[in-house]
């Protein structure tokens, strides 16, 4: 599988570390609801099909990107930057 790092270009996926479901968003810092945090930590929709997921280019620039990928075919639809510098790339 090959992923396109927004900073470094196309690379084999073993250069990256998988960080899981990117739709699981952490509740805001001031949100102290146990339910919300539980949902963030444990609930996964685990789709068979398109999945938005986080990958960190750990053997490269060490920034994250959101990859949209089909979990059945492994087709990569898109790789978008996230993080403090993401806006500058867009």
């Amino acid at each position: 599988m090959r992923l396109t790092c927004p900073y470094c270009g196309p690379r084999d996926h073993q250069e990256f570390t998988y960080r899981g479901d990117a739709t699981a968003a952490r509740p805001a810092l001031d949100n102290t609801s146990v339910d919300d945090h539980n949902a963030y930590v444990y609930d996964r929709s685990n789709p068979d099909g398109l999945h938005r997921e986080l990958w960190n280019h750990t053997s490269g620039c060490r920034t994250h990107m959101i990859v949209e990928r089909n979990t059945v075919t492994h087709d990569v639809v898109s790789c978008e930057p996230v993080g403090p510098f993401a806006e500058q790339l867009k």
Partner: protein
Amino acid sequence: MSAFRLNLRDGVGTNLSDKSISFSFDGKSYRGIEGDTLASALLANGLSIIGRSFKYHRPRGVFTAGSEEPNALVTLHSGGRTEPNIRATEVELFEGLVARSQNRRPSVNFDLMAVNQLAGKAFSAGFYYKTFMGPALRGHKATRFWWVCEQFIRRAAGLGRGTTIPDPDHYARMNAFCDILVVGSGAAGLAAARRVAASGVRVIVCEESARAGGALASSPDFIDGEPAREWSADQIAELSAMDNVSILTRTTVQGYFDDNTFFAIERVTDHLAHKDRTVPRQRAWNIRAKSAVIATGALERPMVFAGNDRPGIMLADSARRYAVEFGTAPGRAVAVFTNNDTGWLAARDLAKAGVIVTAIVDVRTDIEASIRVLGEECRATIHSGSAIRSVKGMRGVNGIVIATYNELTGELGADSKTIACDCVAVSGGWSPAFHLTSQQGGKPVWDTELQAFLPGDPLQKWHGAGAMAGEFGLAQAFRSGEEAALKALADTGVAMPKQAAKIGSGPDIDGDEIDYAPAPVFEINSGGKSFVDLQHDVTAEDVRLAHREGFVSVEHLKRYTTLGMATDQGKTSNVTGLAIMAAASNKPIADTGTTRFRPPYTPVAMGAIAGEKYGHLAAERLTPMHDIHVESGAGMYANGPWMRPETYNLPGETVEQAYIRETKAVRAGVGIVDVSTLGKIDVQGPDAAEFLNRVYTNGFAKLPVGKARYGLMLREDGFLFDDGTTWRFDEHRYLMTTTTAGAGRVMEHLEYYRDFVWPDLKVALASVSDEWAGVAVAGPKSRELLKVCVKKCDVSDKGLPFMGLVDGVIADIPVKIARLSFSGELAFEVYCGAHWGSALWHALMSAGRKLDVVPYGLEALSTLRIEKGHVAGPELNGRTTPHDLGLSGMVSSKKNFVGSVLLQRETFSKQDRLQLVAVKSLDGQRIRGGSHLVAGSKDEPGISQGHTTSTCFSPELGCYISLALLEGGYKRHGEKLFATNPVRDAHVAIEVLSHHMVDPEGGRMRG
């Protein structure tokens, strides 16, 4: 069968040179010719029984001329280079080659295990599932019954014998990128390669065999007026000369992975008599191609008939190739048995090479005149509408009995006619080799016209060409090759001039025009033992038995009968087996479907897959002071990827004596220890303080510049994640240290929050673990030591208070010194640039000489912190919270941080949780690692109430101690229990203590 060497001349033995080669088989010496395969050389020497089958140990001969061979498996070489299960059809002969037959006792010609055949019918599919359950008296005994039987069965099974001597050879990996990969260099592959190469894109061509050209090598056709073989050689030479083309021969593309990543194995030295051991034996290629042309050809399949496994029966095209390419007649008198035109071509070419073809038996009644002529050319008797009823001969072929055959009903007539022959060349049609595309999940489609599965729709960027795509015949191969090339070029986005994008008429072909579609006949069922899978001895009856027992799905068929699961992966048997199952189920083959091919295409040496990871080449991390430790006599110890000193043993000292001495020296004087392995992360930015405040449980917002603070990190679920100290160098700059083992995951953890959760925070992170070397200086005399060598800073209690941080210089080395203590003593951590690490170590050692400084290792480091009750990896086991480890005070209630919300869950405040305590041995016995805490005796210990985590002998307490996690432990200080360790045969009386064993008030480290 008595195969023999033909008179070599033009067109006979095209692969052979004139150089004679000697080799040995089963200890006997033979001669072959350069260009032979082991199989062709064995045949040329008249050997017919090469191997024994898996189950019945039946004698087997050479069945094919390629990598699809099911029968002729041998063991090559000896010692650490022993290689079992090698197909003789793929081994290029070289001077001195040593091969042995296998899976036979005592010899391949006389195998005692062949008695298995006597139980033939009982030994049918599913045999093992139905018996060996043992007497049904007592279940436990019965299990042993199978266990005993299994010992014998295991020994009888298996093919060749492996070795336990390490492989002395080495392997390599090549990462390659190209625009277009062409797999296969036959007519279709060549046409595609020519076309794409001309456009200037980067092309890699992989060819499984020693020479490019594929079937062109033995084709009788003429191309552009030249013999096909010569024409293809010219084409290949032209291609090879192009800068943008690499042709890899002896390179099998084994796997097709996501995003057009191909895995290929190049056999670099296997075929050489004199191997240069400095080059790798095999090279694994990871090829990323923008697009690919798959032109892997097709594999001939046999028809199944009674006695079809006798040595002397082989595939028709293979028989033809042995004559044409290897100048070897497969027999003195060959009978061809076919259901398609290619069998006739084989007959004609055999005869042309000087082989006597006595008969052509074709199941079809209507045979085109143009084809019939081919039979007449070779003066064979022609039996159309006939089939083989049985084969005469036990260990070879003496003749065949044929009968009239009704193509519609599949029935044999009552007549019979015997034809004398010693070789049967059989053709049952061709199966496209779409293994690679099937690996990707592409669903093959049955083509009724061609009687073959075709690869189906592409799921990735590949285009099929030639026989692989069902385009049989030379003209079709050229045309489909060019078409595939254009599609592949379009994938790469190369703009094509209009003229170039046209398919030309291709080269001029002068050759046979035949119909490649066979009659839909797969099996001649005459009641005798007919083998579908030759290597696994799966018979047509086994397939029908599977059907009878309800194992009708193709996967069930495969798994129940083991059809197609042998080392050839059913390359010549799968389709036939499916067809027999379809017939038994009264279903069209299209509905039966086929199983998915799995990588690799042919078996691959595991050393080649591991490549540079072979053996013990896993990364090893060494600290800057590594050599000093080794020179000082330290026993080095693998701690994750790091090598660390265990103890610095004096002569005659045990590890335990050494760490006790080191520990005492630290508590009484001063010692130094290498702490360079700690994870170190540079945290910078205006929001660094806020960021740290969010990831640590305790407050970091107000940490003053020039101070360090110990911090705890949680996972979001509230469990402890890591700990360490973080130092504030500057308003916006911090150095975070992590545990050695946690360095990588902490970095990823922080990056996740920075990038994904709080990208609005202005903070930058960099791993600087390797940039800093660190030495901890510990003991009541540590300050004295530093005073000797430190310049440009004040290390007095006032100048450098507890948790303080200063810049200084030691022996001209700029250092950062923090007053931190893991040991519980007055202690400092001194950091410098990694390249100064050993100089710093030497400087500290010489500064401490008068103070009798000792270097101490991991064991003493650990002992000191256990005595102090400081937690480390064994306590941070991913199942403990700060409350469990007596660290509730570190958890701020004034802020929210990672894990703060879920840490509040009710379960974490339960009083019966495993809680950190210390235990001490009451009877002088050692508490061994891994003990559990129980109330009962050695014989009846009762259930586990907890377990020890970090154990040592405590010089301070004068007894063996351990940190432990005990149910409700905080309230059980003073309780007497046992540390039981049945696997180490120990049961020690212990007393539960507070984990703060040494200097609980902390006076020493603050002093």
